[in-house]
């Protein structure tokens, strides 16, 4: 069907005028950038919030049945963890405690205090897949010590090992840092041992400590155990108040929470649609102008005896060159813009193969749609009228 003619006519049309070519490609390129950036923001929002889950060292997660995202907090009773231990397939089950609304870091630089998410865990166990945490965790065994996020917002003050700060009114010593970074809800994170955690956040209501409430249960399986079977076994022994999820499933929950509860999904979705529409009109204008300028040539082709299908192929092929060229330019500039935006907004902007493929397909669709609209002009070209 897509047979090549001896003369690469579409290519010649496309590359005929250098000045026009540059202008046309610039138009498509910017439509591509617009789609990339809007999509990058949308994915960045999700990546930002699932990054934490990716960094947990666990095969299965135990969370409160109502838990929708890392924050808001939804603790569950610690005894669920004990119920899990000893089940077939389970190698270990550790708890991760979290506090957000009542935890503040007061820095010694200017005495200002800002909310910080504080996580409490057993420093002798491997809970995070962050090398810096694994290396520094043993130092947390000393009471009232903390590891702080080196990529947290600047207002937390200086974060260097050996420094001091105050967490919720209690002096703590900073014994190390790790790179995590803020998300939409949390501006910074601190890691402490379970013991320090309970020192920092005693429960005022019951007079006891928060000892019985944990936020995440991290379940590791024995080598060779089936995730699905172990999970079924756990579900059969656990009551309804907790849920057993894989990391991927919990990440899906987080995505649906942030996608629906905040307007950002709609915002960047709209941006992508507008980018696509702008692309279609730009492409259309370019192709239409091209056809108009070459109307006598198109008419001649028809007069020689080529059919409409040939003309359509010709214009679509030209549109595809436009799409590929515009995409290539857009991709290069996008890589640059993503880098700048990542630094500026602290939202991770990853350019994955899948996302590139998605924008590439959209770009080609954009060009083909506009080609199909524009080609009508060429089909209408009447050899008798043109000359």
């Amino acid at each position, binding site marked *: 069907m897509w047979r090549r003619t001896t003369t690469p006519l579409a290519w010649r049309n496309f590359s005929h005028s250098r000045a026009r070519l540059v202008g046309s490609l610039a138009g498509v390129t910017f439509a591509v950038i617009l789609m990339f950036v809007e999509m990058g923001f949308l994915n960045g929002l999700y990546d930002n919030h699932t990054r934490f889950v990716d960094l947990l060292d666990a095969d299965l997660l135990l969370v409160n049945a109502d838990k929708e995202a890392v924050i808001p907090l939804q603790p569950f009773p610690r005894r669920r963890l004990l119920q899990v231990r000893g089940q077939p397939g389970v190698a270990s089950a550790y708890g991760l405690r979290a506090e957000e609304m009542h935890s503040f870091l007061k820095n010694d630089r200017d005495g200002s205090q800002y909310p910080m998410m504080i996580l409490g865990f057993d420093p002798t166990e491997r809970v995070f897949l962050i090398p810096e945490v694994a290396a520094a965790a043993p130092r947390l065994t000393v009471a009232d010590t903390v590891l702080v996020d080196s990529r947290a917002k600047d207002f937390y003050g200086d974060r260097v090992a050996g420094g001091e700060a105050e967490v919720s009114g209690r002096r703590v010593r900073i014994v190390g840092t790790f790179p995590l970074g803020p998300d939409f809800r949390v501006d910074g994170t601190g890691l402490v041992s379970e013991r320090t955690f309970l020192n920092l956040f005693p429960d005022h209501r019951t007079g006891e400590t928060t000892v019985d409430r944990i936020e995440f249960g991290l379940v590791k399986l024995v080598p060779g155990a089936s995730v699905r079977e172990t999970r079924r076994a756990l579900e059969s022994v656990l009551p309804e108040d907790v849920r057993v999820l894989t990391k991927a499933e919990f990440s899906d929950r987080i995505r649906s929470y942030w996608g629906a509860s*905040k307007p950002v999904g709609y915002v960047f979705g709209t941006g992508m649609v507008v980018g696509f529409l702008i692309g279609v009109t730009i492409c259309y204008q370019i192709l239409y102008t091209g056809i108009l300028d070459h109307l006598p040539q198109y008419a001649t082709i028809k007069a020689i005896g080529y059919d409409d299908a040939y003309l359509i192929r010709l214009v679509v092929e030209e549109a595809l060159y436009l799409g590929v060229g515009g995409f290539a330019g857009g991709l290069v500039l996008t890589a640059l813009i993503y880098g700048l935006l990542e630094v500026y907004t602290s939202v991770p902007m990853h350019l994955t193969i899948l996302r590139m493929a998605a924008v590439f397909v959209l770009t080609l669709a954009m060009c083909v749609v506009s080609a199909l609209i524009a080609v009508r002009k060429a089909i209408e070209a009447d050899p008798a009228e043109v000359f």
Partner: protein
Amino acid sequence: MPTPLAWRNVTHKKVRTAAALTGVCFAIVLMFMQLGFYDVVFRASIMLLDQFAFDLVLVSPQYVHLRASGSIPRARLFQARALPGVASASPLYVANGAWRNAATGARRELPMLGVDPDEPAFALPALVKEAPRLHELDTALMDVHAQKRYGPIHEGLVSELENRRVKVVGTYAYGSGFMADASVIVSDRTLLRLAHDASRENVSLGLVRVLPGTPVKDVMAALQQHLPADVKVWRRRDLEANEQKFFVQIKPIGLMFFSGVLLAFGVGGIILYQILSAEVTNHLKEFATLMAMGYKERFLVLVVIQQATLFALLGFAPAVVLALFMYLVIGWVTQLPMVMTVGRFAGVLVLSVAMCAAAGLIASRKVGRADPADLF
């Protein structure tokens, strides 16, 4: 000049003009949308505050934002009330709570706002009317916008807040913005029963109303002079600016939306240029003919700029309609205040015309090069 040349150029080839105008229109819509989103950050950061009536506010030196407010001694409110020009000084307690979805049983966090029902603290008419109902303990006023995520919300509903039975005695419709997914208003006494780490003596914010006719800045100066350093006195707009700064400059959402605005103007400008440049190219023959007839280049440049302005105006009209429609839809779906302001309307109009004219000016350089001898 008897022939309106620019107008004729625009109206000559209808389809081609329509295509160019569509492009112009989308570029303008893009600017409107991104500006609208950016503006939402400002509006949505203070929606919880909009519900309250105050001219001045007493905050802790540790105040970060409404949900991380620190606290001030309640005694400061009594001291404030004694000063001339102060009509009222009401406590506002803010604490985090978990609301039980009455349909699913799921618990979800939200900020609890505690006020003394006898104080004139509310701004929304519905809240002013319903406030006395909070005298009964364990009652709450809820925003019906919360229904989407917090289950059914209606007057008479009994559910749980912080594991305690609470009855909804009134509803209103406003929205909570970015600070929270929803909020619940209770009396100060109820809040102290619900929030385990709240204390009557530690007030989150002091809402001060000034007597009519008294300059706010005089009262502010008096408060600053008489109150100790453990409270800061802010005007309403200082507090609003503080909340907005947090979301616009610190939280990624403001930075992302601002990047969106920059992108919209950058891309919008380039698209407009591309379209106008193509238009000039299309009429190059005619322009060359005119030059051959003896018209000066300046005249032709003027025609191009006129044409560019026409494009801007003709593209602007449908763009406004489309943008308003999208504001409406997105505002409805997200329950955020997407509104068109006179300033934005005028700003984008002026900018579109200016961008088109500039693009026309650059593109018109081609006209100067139009050589009749080359073209025919």
